[in-house]
């Protein structure tokens, strides 16, 4: 009572409360700056590029004339690369995750694999480009093809899928497996018919995350040797190719303002694709989650 009545206490309390409010404002401002940057970035892109987005732009090949340049070759290249990467990384990633969660015993070897996966997720993407160049392009003789690009991207996103799939598989309750074993199911039958279907939404979220990453990556494919000017659509796994981010990069590095507009338009298409995939991920997850719980 005596302390609270003391004039120093009141003064201190007022200062502490004032500091608290100032700090609250400061924290809010930091979030505000981040949001403002996002708005600024998107606003600038739309202002610069939206008038260039048209069917002719999407269905046109690159051109030396900035107003006629399109993204058909790059878009198709991106789709090829991302599809190959997704198939490779999904198969290997889910398989590895199931092995690590359901089969592997908890020993130093499993720990090593686990640490290794965590570290791979942190390797700069450009290093994967070097790996792809040496292993797929040169040693395996695939050339600078869309297949080599897809495989490189597959390895790049593999850790993302493994980590997501491991979490999804781990979240399936033990009782599900035990119920299956009690009915005479083998380990694999329990995994295939019960664990994996329940883990699927989590796995798919990881896959979509991985595909978004693969769709936006530029540097590894440049190092691997994708082209920057491709006036043709890829016609098979051994075709040479370019991807949308590389096409955008190519247009940014040209001096003419017309190409910068084309770059902004390309970015808008790229962002719409990414947005659509993430919306798809949310829809998929909701759809699967409505299933009755086992």
């Amino acid at each position, binding site marked *: 009572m005596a302390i609270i009545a003391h004039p120093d206490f009141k003064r201190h309390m007022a200062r502490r409360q004032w500091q608290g409010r100032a700090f609250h404002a400061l924290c809010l401002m930091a979030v505000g700056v981040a949001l403002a940057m996002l708005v600024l970035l998107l606003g600038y892109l739309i202002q610069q590029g939206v008038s260039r987005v048209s069917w002719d732009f999407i269905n046109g090949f690159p051109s030396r004339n900035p107003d006629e340049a399109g993204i058909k070759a790059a878009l198709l290249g991106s789709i090829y690369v991302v599809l190959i990467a997704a198939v490779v990384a999904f*198969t290997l990633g889910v398989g590895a995750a199931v092995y690590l969660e359901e089969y592997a015993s908890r020993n130093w070897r499993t720990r090593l694999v686990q640490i290794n996966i965590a570290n791979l997720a*942190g390797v700069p*993407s450009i290093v994967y480009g070097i790996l792809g160049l040496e292993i797929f392009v040169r040693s395996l003789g695939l050339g600078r093809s869309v297949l080599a690009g897809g495989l490189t991207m597959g390895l790049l996103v593999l850790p993302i899928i493994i980590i997501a799939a491991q979490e999804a598989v781990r979240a399936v309750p033990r009782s599900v497996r035990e119920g299956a074993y009690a009915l005479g199911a083998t380990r694999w039958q329990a995994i295939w018919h019960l664990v994996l279907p329940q883990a699927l939404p989590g796995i798919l979220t990881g896959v979509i995350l991985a595909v978004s990453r693969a769709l936006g990556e530029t540097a590894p494919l440049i190092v691997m040797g994708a082209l920057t000017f491709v006036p043709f659509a890829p016609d098979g796994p051994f075709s040479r190719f370019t991807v949308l981010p590389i096409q955008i990069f190519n247009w940014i590095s040209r001096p003419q303002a017309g190409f910068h507009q084309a770059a902004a338009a390309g970015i808008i298409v790229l962002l719409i694709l990414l947005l659509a995939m993430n919306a798809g991920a949310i829809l998929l997850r909701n759809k699967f989650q409505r299933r009755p719980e086992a």
Partner: protein
Amino acid sequence: MARDDLTQHQSAAARLRASLPRHWKRILSERIIRFLLALFSIVSILTTVGIVSVLLFEAILFFQEVSPWEFISGTRWTPLFASKHFGIWPLLTGTILTSAGAMLVALPLGLLSAIYLSEYAPDIMRRSLKPVLEVLAGIPTVVYGYFGLLFVTPLLRQISPNISVFNGLSASIVMGIMILPMVSSLSEDAMRAVPRSLREGAYALGSTKLEVSTRVVIPAALSGITAAFILAISRAVGETMIVVIAAGQNPTFTLNPFVPIETMTAYIVQVSLGDTPTGTLEFKTIFAVGLTLFIVTLAMNLLSQYFVGRFREVYE
């Protein structure tokens, strides 16, 4: 005749099938599946082995022609010119400058955002702000490069005309924004893992929210926050397209943020885009640079995991 063979063949297979006890087959197929899955999990190990051996093998070839001492101590990097120098320091200063600059942006903003989300924001704000911040992390880096070169740089040049078209400052700012969500989201996770009881104890002693946040929550979450920072630096060091587009391709031994520079990653892209034939000494430089980059980021990732491990020990 052929038909007889076929039925004979079929009945032989059927006899074999019947003679093989059912559970043997199940055991066999279970074994095969297990083996295949184990093979899949080895691919990640093979990837690491591949990265390390490719980088080491080619870097050793490079160091047979260039002395390692020149590489790690030289301050001139001109492998693509007639008078060749192979000192990595200009690329290192470029990388240090842009990464440090990015951290100067991402660290305070990211940490303050994390404090806001973890300590101040009402639940509904937190749940709607987090995904929006994550959008920033999902934007491809080539987009940030575009924004840096064509929006931020012209703005900076209006403020000070001395700034070059390509400069480390603009790349740093944009890279900081890109890394910010990573810092804020990982730091927030660490802060939310701090038990409520610690906060309530501090409130019971009459602390304000500011005091609880800065003197209780942050110290308690410090190893997790440190891990987030180190991971963010590692990300900045390995970041490529922003610096290729906005920072330039001039390996300069300087920490001046207003002039064109070149980072390790940007150099690798420059060589890849050029017409340097594979197998030449000029081309082998990318493996020596790639190895340096790999070692630096690996060291930081391991350090970050060490801090995460410490943070788990305390609260689980």
